[in-house]
């Protein structure tokens, strides 16, 4: 690990004050691991925000008499994992959410799952664990049964204390959790006066599946399958992140050919989802022509996926140590053909969309997310990229195969829905180029070798070995933390979907918009409910 980065200076600065951090690294030497006392938890975050560190993820773990609490920070593509131990008898930790708004919901999730009390937290209402759960049952504690303790009849989630507003002509609009379209469940509570939105509050958690709990005790193969189901539209992204974490823990390197195929899969997923999103944005302003075209293009793309990889959404194509399926010469030709066709079709479609003034009128300036707020909430992916957050894991913390290629990170600077629409288009173009580069490398020299393996041999990791997988999914940076138990079993799996950081931005970007513009604002952000609720 190079010592010529900000971590050294920052560590010196911290250790010159009250901290005494012994620098360590996670397996793979990529991520620094700093352990501090629990009382200094919040203090650290104050130093961190001065140094402009980005809060990236937070999770906890139950280990007999203590809770191990982690928070992941990032700056300039270098990640630091901050860790502390909290006594399980009196689990209390000063909240970082007062300093980092991005940590807010994550801490509430930890509070709900473990019963850790974050002192000074600005909003300690329940989040994931709805009111229907008994008062003191914390699902991620070791003594809680995997199958849960479901009552015969689940009581309704009645008394969530939503933010209230009063005044002449102010009214509330409850929307969801069951929506008219075929989308995931989530509740939105609006306070509006006339058509103007005064406040929006999200209430998520309706698709809580207990992913973290059921991950415990799995084998690596089984966990990879589970990771592919954290959010159905990001199956490649989550599966890759989880596999990367497991590979770090086990100390294995994936074969170059497997890395290239993973790259092709991930870019393919990005393209399909962006096409779907761009169509959906147009549909929400009743520009149905464009939606139909994008749906058609997406469908064609997915069918090629099914032909080549055997699954439209590419589920279970990535396995620990490599990939499950190879790309034949014929498959490469088919993908290349698809790339050319998609590019040609988009070059015909996009001018028609660009020149449509009625569409422009709806998308420009609507749903403005200021760079300051985007930074405060640590927004990722197309949401961050269109609000001045120039960060892409593929470039800034490159991992194979992205370390061998060059590409341009798409950026837009208008901070509105149109920016989030066009940044997706730019990402599609970049992804198409990446796929072409990967395929070219697949064919190069050694890679054509028959003996080239697709899967590195799995080595049982030692007990307690851990890994942090960080990849750029189509929504943005995905992190996955994994710690192994003895006997090749998973002890802890925590996936952090980019939606967890992007959802709060929606509450902000809808302010001062009008109620009928909310659906398109929401679609421009398109957070995953499943990835958020876990």
């Amino acid at each position: 690990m190079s010592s010529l980065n900000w971590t050294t200076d920052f560590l010196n600065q911290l250790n010159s004050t009250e901290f005494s951090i012994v620098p360590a690294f996670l397996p793979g030497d990529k991520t620094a691991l700093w352990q501090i006392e629990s009382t200094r938890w919040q203090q650290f975050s104050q130093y961190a925000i001065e140094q402009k560190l980005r809060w990236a993820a937070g999770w906890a773990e139950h280990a007999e008499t203590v809770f191990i609490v982690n928070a992941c920070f990032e700056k300039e593509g270098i990640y630091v994992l901050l860790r502390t131990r909290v006594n399980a008898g009196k689990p209390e930790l000063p909240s970082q959410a007062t300093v980092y708004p991005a940590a807010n919901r994550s801490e509430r999730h930890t509070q709900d799952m473990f019963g850790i009390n974050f002192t000074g937290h600005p909003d300690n209402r329940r989040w994931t664990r709805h009111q229907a759960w008994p008062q003191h049952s914390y699902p991620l504690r070791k003594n809680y049964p995997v199958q849960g303790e479901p009552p015969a009849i689940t009581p309704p989630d009645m008394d969530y204390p939503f933010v209230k507003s009063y005044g002449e002509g102010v009214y509330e609009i409850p929307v969801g959790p069951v929506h008219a379209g075929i989308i995931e469940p989530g509740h939105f509570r609006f306070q509006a006066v006339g058509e103007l939105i005064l406040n929006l509050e999200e209430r998520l958690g309706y698709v809580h599946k207990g992913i973290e709990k059921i991950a415990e005790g799995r084998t690596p193969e089984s966990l990879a399958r589970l990771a592919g189901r954290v959010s159905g539209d990001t199956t490649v992204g989550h599966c890759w992140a989880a596999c990367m974490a497991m590979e770090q823990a086990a100390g294995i390197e994936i074969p170059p050919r497997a890395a290239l195929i993973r790259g092709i899969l991930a870019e393919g997923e990005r393209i399909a989802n962006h096409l779907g999103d761009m169509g959906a944005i147009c549909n929400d302003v009743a520009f149905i022509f464009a939606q139909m075209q994008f749906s058609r293009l997406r469908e064609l793309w997915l069918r090629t996926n099914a032909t080549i990889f055997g699954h439209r959404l590419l589920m279970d194509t990535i396995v620990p140590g490599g990939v499950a399926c190879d790309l034949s010469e014929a498959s490469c030709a088919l993908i290349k053909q698809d790339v050319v066709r998609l590019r040609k079709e988009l070059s015909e479609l996009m001018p028609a969309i660009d020149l449509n003034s009625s569409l422009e009128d709806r998308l420009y300036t609507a749903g403005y997310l200021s760079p300051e707020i985007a930074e405060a909430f640590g927004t990722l992916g197309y949401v961050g990229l269109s609000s001045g957050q120039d960060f892409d894991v593929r470039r800034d913390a490159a991992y194979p195969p992205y370390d061998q290629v060059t590409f341009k990170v798409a950026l837009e600077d208008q901070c509105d829905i149109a920016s989030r629409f066009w940044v997706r288009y730019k990402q599609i173009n970049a992804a198409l180029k990446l796929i072409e580069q990967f395929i070219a490398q697949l064919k190069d020299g050694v890679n054509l070798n028959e003996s080239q393996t697709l899967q590195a041999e799995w080595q049982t990791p030692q007990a307690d070995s851990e890994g942090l997988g960080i990849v750029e999914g189509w929504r943005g940076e995905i992190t996955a933390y994994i710690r192994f138990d003895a006997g090749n079993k998973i002890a802890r799996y925590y996936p952090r979907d980019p939606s967890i950081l992007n959802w709060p931005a929606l509450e902000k970007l809808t302010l001062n918009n009008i109620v009928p513009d909310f659906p398109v604002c929401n679609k421009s952000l398109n957070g995953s409910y499943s990835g958020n609720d876990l």
Partner: protein
Amino acid sequence: MNWLIAIFQTMLFVLLSPLLAGWIKWCKCYLQNRKAPSLLQPYRDLLKLTHKQPVVSEQASWLFVTAPYIIFSATVLAASVVPLIAVNLPTSASADVIVMVGFFAFARFFLALAGLDIGTAFGGMGSSREMTISSLAEPAMLMAIFTLTMTASTTNLSGAIAHVLNDGMVLRPSFVFALFALILVAIAETGRVPVDNPATHLELTMIHEAMILEYSGRHLALIEWASQLKLMLYGVLITNIFFPWGIAEDFTGKALGYGLLAIMGKLALLAVFLAVAETLVAKMRLFRVQEYLSFAYLLGLLGMLSHIILEASR
């Protein structure tokens, strides 16, 4: 005999309106590269809805249940005023265009009340938006229609159409303005893109659909049918006032047959224009609708001015 034809014409209105809705849908699907449902699909949908048991909220009052019948009847009565295949029918003689607008307003009044009645946020939101739009659309519509009636010196639709027929092909600037004003109003009043999106599932963006969100079964069928009827009514108004040729002036079978063919052809063509327009534009922001309808009003006003300046002096 005349009364029989009048009743027959109103029946035709009621029976053909789902066909027009199906045809518009067919055109839109074609333009969007989709496979269209059968032209008869709206009939099947209506039939299906009548077989379903309506689900009525516990909070609903008698008004909610009665409103669909009132809305449907009022729209049918409005239809009876408008000459479809023949002019000089007794129904059109008994009521004029202001009565027709009144029937629309009557139906809308009950629709908005029904939206408020069940007390959901969406219903109230829809009613509020509908009333905002109609308060702007109605003056624009009356302005356009007054321009026509000033030319014909009558507010009777049948008389106005007959007047246009007798004058033959004369290009009147006032009519051009009035035609465009009426088209803009028609789009707003029938809830089409870019003012409202009849196909959306997004509750928060709805106007007309938000008010009828709680309706089901035969109640929904009646309201759907009434809005299809309203769409056809506006189509007939536009085509028959501005392009009346082909409409039957006597009541022989041949003339009536030609009248029917003519109006179906004209409506089919108008639907194509509507479908093209709906495909080309996105729905406008809700707060733009007032500018849009003010523009319609302005066109109507210009029509009237050009009538007074250019045409009335002669």
